[in-house]
């Protein structure tokens, strides 16, 4: 780890970070602020309950969870936030993670800046590890900003949120995005052409997302859904139970750790880094 390089990388991304923070806060605010207007309507709830169970299952929902989470009279704010904001958080922030991650080595190699860094006494793996940590730090910032956006919103509407449970959901979402960041970093070290690495990572991400959506339609092949990282993101479950499922945590931390270490090994053993 190099703190100077960490600082520089955060600084080089400062405008992107700023933009994402504004976007996430606005998104969270928007979802919270329109809550009063849908709180009384039962139509959406009726609609959700009318969906086939297999489909609800793909969101991690059961009729039981729906009753508990959303109440019988319409959506609770917690339920509304999870449905409209937290549910999409990993895919939205995952876009940032994969854009940054897939360029960690490949963009430096393509621009030639890697030659400048590696003209000085620094290990190749230090560069990759430091940039990965910089990405995690930025993601943590986006997580905090999201929570802040929610909190800000609750100042203006009736009925608060269960902050503990919302945070717990964000922790799982954060782990999902960390896993995305890690495999993007690995691809970046494997494929030095940044256009190709971003295409590969983006392709995997889109395929995972679609695969997870398709689980109800897959029938006997539903196990395929487990190949998707999004499969393990269960925000409703987390809110309902008030705890993280160990299996999801294990998968996310496992993928993150393995891909990260693999990336370090790959960059160290590459025959060319330019």
């Amino acid at each position, binding site marked *: 780890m*190099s*703190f*100077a*390089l960490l600082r*520089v990388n955060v*600084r*080089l991304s400062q405008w992107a970070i700023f933009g994402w923070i504004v976007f996430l806060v606005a998104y969270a605010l928007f979802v919270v602020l329109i809550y009063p207007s849908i709180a009384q309507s039962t139509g959406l709830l009726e609609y959700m309950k009318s969906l086939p169970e297999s489909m609800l299952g793909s969101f991690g929902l059961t009729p039981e969870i729906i009753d508990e989470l959303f109440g019988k009279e319409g959506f609770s704010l917690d339920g509304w936030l999870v449905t409209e904001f937290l549910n999409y958080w990993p895919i939205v922030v995952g876009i940032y993670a994969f854009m940054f991650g897939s360029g960690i080595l490949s963009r430096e190699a393509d*621009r*030639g*800046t*890697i*030659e*400048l*860094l*590696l*003209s*000085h*006494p*620094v*290990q190749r793996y230090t560069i990759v590890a430091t940039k990965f940590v910089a990405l995690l730090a930025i993601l943590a910032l986006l997580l905090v900003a999201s929570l802040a956006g929610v909190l800000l919103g609750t100042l203006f509407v009736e009925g608060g949120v269960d902050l503990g449970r919302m945070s717990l959901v964000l922790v799982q979402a954060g782990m999902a995005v960390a896993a995305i960041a890690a495999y993007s970093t690995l691809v970046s070290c494997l494929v030095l052409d940044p256009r190709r690495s971003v295409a590969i990572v983006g392709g995997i991400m889109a395929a995972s997302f679609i695969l997870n959506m398709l689980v109800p339609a897959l029938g006997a092949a539903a196990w395929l859904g487990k190949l998707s990282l999004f499969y393990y993101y269960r925000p409703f479950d987390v809110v309902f139970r008030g705890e993280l499922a160990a299996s999801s945590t294990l998968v996310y931390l496992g993928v993150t750790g393995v891909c990260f270490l693999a990336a370090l090994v790959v960059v160290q053993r590459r*025959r*060319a*880094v*330019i």
Partner: protein
Amino acid sequence: MATNYAIVTQDLTKFYGRQRGIEGVNLRVLEGEVLGFLGPNGAGKTTTLRVFLDLLRPTSGSARIFGLDTQRHDVEIKRRLGNIPGDIALYESLKGSELLDLLGSFRGRGGGRRIKELAERFDLDLGRQVRAYSRGMKQKLAILQAFMHDPELLLLDEPTLGLDPLMQREFYALLAEEHNRGKTVFLSSHILSEVERLCGRVAIIKEGRLVLVDEVEALKRRKVRKMHIHFRREVGKEDLRLPGAELLRLEGQEVEFLMKGDIQTLLAAVARLPVEDIAFPEATLEEAFLEFYQPAPEGAAV
């Protein structure tokens, strides 16, 4: 005293897939010498330097710097060298000083005074964003990052690219000082006068293979020399058939010969002609080298 080598390569070979980069390069760079590394475009100069930095690993063979293998001890080696890359790419949104801080951080603190000295010497404003630098200013920043830690060995890939003549001169002066302080310089360049002025020895690489390593002086001596004669009046071509000289040019009273054979008999023959003035222009490295830049004849072994 045993000879010490800063760099030793052994059958160093690097292929990019099937494209040859360099092949079978055996080179020894003496500690404390300034070695010019010359060759036509695509000859393999940058490839060689990138192998030294472990940016590229050899397909076969090896390179040792300070006696250490470049693949296994790259960080130790880099602690003691400075490098100016051939294609400099910098972080555009950093200030010059911030970039030097970052690169300096890999070497621990220090070097601040030398950076300040060098920045003044090369008249570079480190407070500005790299994005706003001109081509030559970027080159100066590359020079600063290579020299700021006072390294023992300098790897320079076309270091004066984009510098104005004044700054080029400043850079040559800096190199000469470093040389006098015992530093080793490995200088890849296309500017032959620069190499001639700075280097004790030159290595020439062509199509990936080392074709010659010799002292600059020896090369110049080896080169066939020319003789210019200004006659008092015009002389017929038949009178200019001289022993050991080949007529190159005849323009009125101006004649140019290529000297090949024994100079004694030649001078005796010249003495019989109406000579007004005679000159032996010194052979430049340019003349000695240009032949190496010609493409190899079809089917000829290099």
